[in-house]
């Protein structure tokens, strides 16, 4: 009912039309109109006086009433037109807002301007990885985040999302042991260790996770392979023990 055309367009038009007609014919109906018109400032008093003429000269009243009817109809039509165009604009704005909210609801509740898209930069205090480390290229999250929010399947071309040269095989892997004595898989990027955090099935979910972690002040990178996207979080402290992942023997599978 709140959004019905009657309430939004017809009713305001009827009210405006009625108000217009009442205002135009009020001087004819009121005995105190002359007194009131004298108190009005110029030019309103002059306009009111002219309207009082029909009260004294009844031959003018029929024409004047006709004028009042036409005027009130015009006011009503004009009001309806104005309301209609306003509603159209409002609907367009609402649909745009819905689109934005829908897109935003797919992402964490983060203001994109608050996100630090900068790629994690290792600190100088971090223990250097073994010399066997292969050259690595960190993920360009800025290009990823600017990309489409729609799901990209893992088997799609990763270059579409800006995920170039971030295959897990390109990184040096380690087993690190932190202060809690627990071991975990980690990779080294430019002197810093990044602990395995979570594997995500598609780029959209990986992107959301990275945004959440970055908002928590964590430095994050991600790697991609044909199965999934793996998110890694930088260790805040130097690990107590670092063991390089063994050089893998590639077994042939028929």
């Amino acid at each position, binding site marked *: 009912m709140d959004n019905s055309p009657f309430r939004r367009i017809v009713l305001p038009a009827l009210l405006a039309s009625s108000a217009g007609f009442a205002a135009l014919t009020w001087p004819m109906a009121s005995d105190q109109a002359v007194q009131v018109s004298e108190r009005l400032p110029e030019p309103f008093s002059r306009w009111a006086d002219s309207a009082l003429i029909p009260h004294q000269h009844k031959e003018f009243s029929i024409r004047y009433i006709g004028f009042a009817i036409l005027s009130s109809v015009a006011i009503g039509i004009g009001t309806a037109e104005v309301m209609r165009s306003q509603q159209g604009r409002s609907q367009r704005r609402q649909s745009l807002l819905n689109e934005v*909210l829908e897109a935003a*609801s797919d992402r*964490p*509740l983060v203001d994109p301007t608050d996100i630090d898209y900068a790629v994690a930069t290792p600190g100088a205090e971090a223990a250097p990885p073994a010399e066997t480390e292969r050259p690595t290229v960190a993920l360009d999250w800025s290009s990823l985040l600017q990309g489409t929010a729609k799901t990209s399947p893992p088997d799609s071309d990763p270059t579409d999302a800006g995920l170039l040269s971030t295959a*897990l095989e390109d990184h040096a*892997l380690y*087993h690190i042991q932190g202060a*809690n004595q*627990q*071991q*975990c*898989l980690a990779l080294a990027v430019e002197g810093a260790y990044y*602990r*395995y*955090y*979570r*594997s995500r099935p598609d780029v959209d*979910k990986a992107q*959301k*996770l990275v945004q*959440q972690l970055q908002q928590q002040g964590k430095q994050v990178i991600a790697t991609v392979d044909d*199965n*999934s996207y*793996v998110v890694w979080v930088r260790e805040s402290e130097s690990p107590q023990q670092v063991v390089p*992942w*063994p050089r*893998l*023997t*590639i*077994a*042939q*599978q*028929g």
Partner: protein
Amino acid sequence: MNLKTLEHLWTAFVEGERDFTGINLAGADLNHWSLARVDFWGADFSRANLTKANFRRANLKQAQFSDANLSGADLRWADLREAVLTGADLDAARLEGALYNARTQFPEGFNPSEASMWSLEPGASLATKDLRERDLGGADLTAADLSGALLVNSQLFGVVLKKANLLSALMGDSDLRYADLRQATLMLADLRGADLRGADLRGANLIGTNLRGCQLAATNLEGALYSDSTQFPRGFQLPKTLHHLAPGASLWGADLSGARLTGVDLSGANLAGANLMHADLWGACLANADLSGANLLGANLLGTDLSGANLNQTNLMQAIIDLPGERAPMVALNGQTA
């Protein structure tokens, strides 16, 4: 939390979405909601009304439940590792089989063991437990007992299962990429269809293991043990670094320390100079085997058939053996049977 978030949760949930990682539902009224198996990793339920909510098998890792009302909630088999439950009302909540670790924060005075929760830590006892379709990637389960456990279709990327007991475990279709399975016992385990790319299986026990359909590219199998009953993927070319355990096998100088070799038939095998330190040879057949110079320090030789074996200069120090006619097992000292 705002109404839009709750509306989004409801709409997406009805449409079949089950991944709500990091969603903010602080202060929300979700009493009696059924959210079983939903992924709420890192979600915020602070001060939320979750009375009699159903979170069975839900992923609640790193979720915030500070001052939330979880009275009567069903949290059975939910993953509560690193979750914050301080100040939460867990009155009459069901927590059997829910996972936790040292970083899970419970309300004051709460004892997870009394609630029949399962600890996911190194050395954990999880034999025959149902852990299927879980995201346990990166967890440290060194030396854990997972014998007979159900781990089908689980996310185990980078999991540390070094020296874990996975005897007869069911791990089909699991993601075990870059898993650390060094010296793990996978004897009779079913890994059909599992992804083991990049995994480290050095010294793992693969006797009787079913590896059909497994992806073994770049899998390190150096020193792994296998037998004729081990089923490898079709067309898989066995690396020469694997140890074939069979009667008459040549295992000269092999490192079998800590290996679980219960009931294995190694009769007539050449184990000269082999390292069998702390190996479990319970019920194994080593008849006529050459164990000269082998190291059996602390090995379990209960019920082991050593008839006709060459024990010249064999180190049997602290080995557990039983003698004919003796009930209690004896411990060999200084290389001489007591």
